[in-house]
C-alpha cells in the first residue's frame, strides 16, 4: 500500500532554477524506497518536501500534491510541527546537538511536552537499540554526544529521529562520510527498521542504491526517469539513461 502519494509535484527555487518537474510517485509502506541519480537531480529537494523542511529555504513555487495517509501536506493549514514529528529526517553530515547523548535523544520529545522520566528513558533505550548503537553507548549516556565517532554520531542522529516514533524516516545520504563498517551498520539497521517504518533513502552511491532498495526511483535533472521494484530496475532497466547511469557511463 502507498504510504505517500506524490502527484504532479513541481518545485521552483527563488533563484529561478527549477528543481523538480511534474513528479508523480507512490511510496510503499514498510519498504525502503531509494531516490538515486546524479547530483542536482532533485532527490534532496523531494526529500525536503516530504517534511516541509523546504519551508526554511527560498522556494518560490511548489505545485502539485503530496498525500501522506491521504492528507495533503502542502496544504497551508497543515500543522507542520505535527508533520515533522511523523516524518523524521537524517542528514548527510551527522549533526549532534551540543548536549549529552541522552539529551540529544530526548530533545524532540521534550519539545513535544513529554516530561515523564520513565517515558523519556524508555524512548532513549528503545530508539538506541533500533539504531543499533545501544551496546556502544549505554554506559555513557550522560557524556557529550560530540565525543562519539562519526559513524556513532550518525546512528545517534537516526536514533534521535526514531525517539519521536515517526511513521516515515527520510535519509539524505546518511552514510556519505562514514567508513564501510559504519555504513554496514547503518544499512543493517535500516533493513530492521523497514518492518515498522516507511523509509525513503537518498543513497550516496549506485552500489548502495542497489544493495538497499526495495523500490527505486531514478532522477535526472528534476525529472523522474524510471521507477519500479529495486531488483528488476538495477538488473534490467527499461530506460536507456537509467542503464547508462547504473553502468557508470555518466554521473
Amino acid at each position, binding site marked *: 500500500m502507498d504510504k505517500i502519494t506524490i502527484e504532479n509535484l513541481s518545485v521552483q527555487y527563488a533563484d529561478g532554477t527549477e528543481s523538480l518537474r511534474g513528479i508523480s510517485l507512490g511510496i510503499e509502506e514498510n519498504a525502503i524506497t531509494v531516490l538515486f541519480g546524479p547530483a542536482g537531480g532533485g532527490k534532496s529537494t523531494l526529500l525536503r518536501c516530504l517534511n516541509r523542511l523546504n519551508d*526554511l529555504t527560498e522556494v518560490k513555487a511548489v505545485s502539485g500534491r503530496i498525500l501522506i495517509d491521504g492528507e495533503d501536506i502542502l496544504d497551508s493549514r497543515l500543522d507542520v510541527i505535527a508533520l515533522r*514529528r511523523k516524518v*523524521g529526517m537524517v542528514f548527510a553530515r551527522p549533526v549532534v546537538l*551540543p548536549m549529552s547523548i541522552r539529551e540529544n535523544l530526548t*530533545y524532540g520529545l521534550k*519539545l513535544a511536552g513529554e516530561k515523564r522520566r520513565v517515558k523519556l528513558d524508555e524512548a532513549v533505550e528503545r530508539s538506541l537499540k533500533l539504531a543499533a548503537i545501544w551496546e556502544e553507548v549505554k554506559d555513557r549516556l550522560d557524556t557529550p*554526544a560530540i565525543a562519539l565517532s562519526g559513524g556513532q554520531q550518525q546512528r545517534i542522529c537516526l536514533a*534521535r529521529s526514531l525517539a*519521536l516514533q515517526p511513521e516515515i524516516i527520510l535519509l539524505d545520504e546518511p552514510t556519505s562520510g562514514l567508513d564501510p563498517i559504519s555504513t554496514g551498520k547503518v544499512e543493517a539497521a535500516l533493513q530492521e527498521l523497514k518492518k515498522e517504518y516507511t523509509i525513503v533513502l537518498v543513497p550516496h552511491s549506485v552500489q548502495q542504491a542497489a544493495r538497499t532498495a526495495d523500490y527505486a526511483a531514478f532522477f535526472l535533472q528534476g525529472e523522474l526517469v524510471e521507477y519500479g521494484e529495486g531488483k528488476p530496475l538495477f538488473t534490467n532497466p527499461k530506460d536507456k539513461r537509467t542503464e547508462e547511469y547504473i553502468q557508470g557511463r555518466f554521473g
Partner: protein
Amino acid sequence: MNSILTRNRHLTQRIGYAIITVMAFATIIPIVAVVIYIFVKGWSAISADFLTTFPTNGMREGGIYPAIVGTVVLTLVASIFVVPLGIAAAIYLAEYARDTKLTRTIRIAIINLAGIPSVVYGLFGLGMFVLFFKFGTSILAASLTLAIMTLPVVISTSEEALRAVPQGFRTVSISLGGTRWQTISRIILKEALPGILTGVILGLERAAGETAPILFTGAVFFLPSLPQSIFDPTMALPYHLFVISTQVPEMPVNIQYGTALVLLAFVLTLNLIATVIRSRARAKRQW
C-alpha cells in the same frame, strides 16, 4: 642562476618576516607604556582611604569614593537598558529578519552608529532625556545616553555570536518538530551566550570610560553625599579625572594619576572578565 633566485626569495621572505614581527611588537609598546606610566605615577595615591572616602579641600585631598560608586551605578543602570534591548534586536536580525534591502540598511545603520562621536551622543542625551523627558541632570538621563551609545556595539557583537552557532543545529531542531523560538531559547542562545556576554562587557567598558556623554546629562563636579535615587546627578570617574586635571589649581599630580589608575583598573578588570568568559566557553564548546 636558479639557486641565486631561490636564495633571493628566501632573503625577501626573511626580511618580510622580520619587519612584520617588529611591527607586531611595536604595537604592544604603547599599550604597555600607558599602563606602566599611569601605574608608576599614580600608585602612591592608592590606599584604602583613597578608595572609600570623599574628596576634601577642593579635591586636593581625600579620596574618590563617590566617583567610583557613580561610575559603577551608571554602568549598571545603562546595562539594564542595553542588555535586553540589544540582545532582542540581535535575535531579530540574526534569526528572524529576512535578507531584504530594509534589514541590510538597518544593519549598516547600526554599524555606522558605532562611529558617531560620543560628544554627539552627549548632546542628544541632553536634548532628549534631560530636557524633553524632563529627567533633569540625573543618573537616569546619563545611563540612557550611555545605553544608546553602547547599543550598536552590543547588537553587532551579539548578532555575530548568534550567527556563529552552526546552521545545522537549527535545521535539526526544526526537523525534530521544534518551533523557531524553541530552537533559539533551548540551543542557539545558550551556545551564543559567551559571545553575547563578551559584547555586552566590551560595550559597557566603553560606557564606563566615556566623559562626553555624561558631561551634559548626569555628571557633576562635586557632591557632598552619594546620590539617593536615579533622578539625582552623580560624580563619575572619567569626569572627575577631567575636572581634577584641568579645573583645579595646585592639584597633586599623584591624585590625578591615582584616579586614572582606578579607572584603568576598572576597565581592564571588565576586559579580563570578558576574556575569561570567552576562553572558558571555548574550552567547553561542543562544536
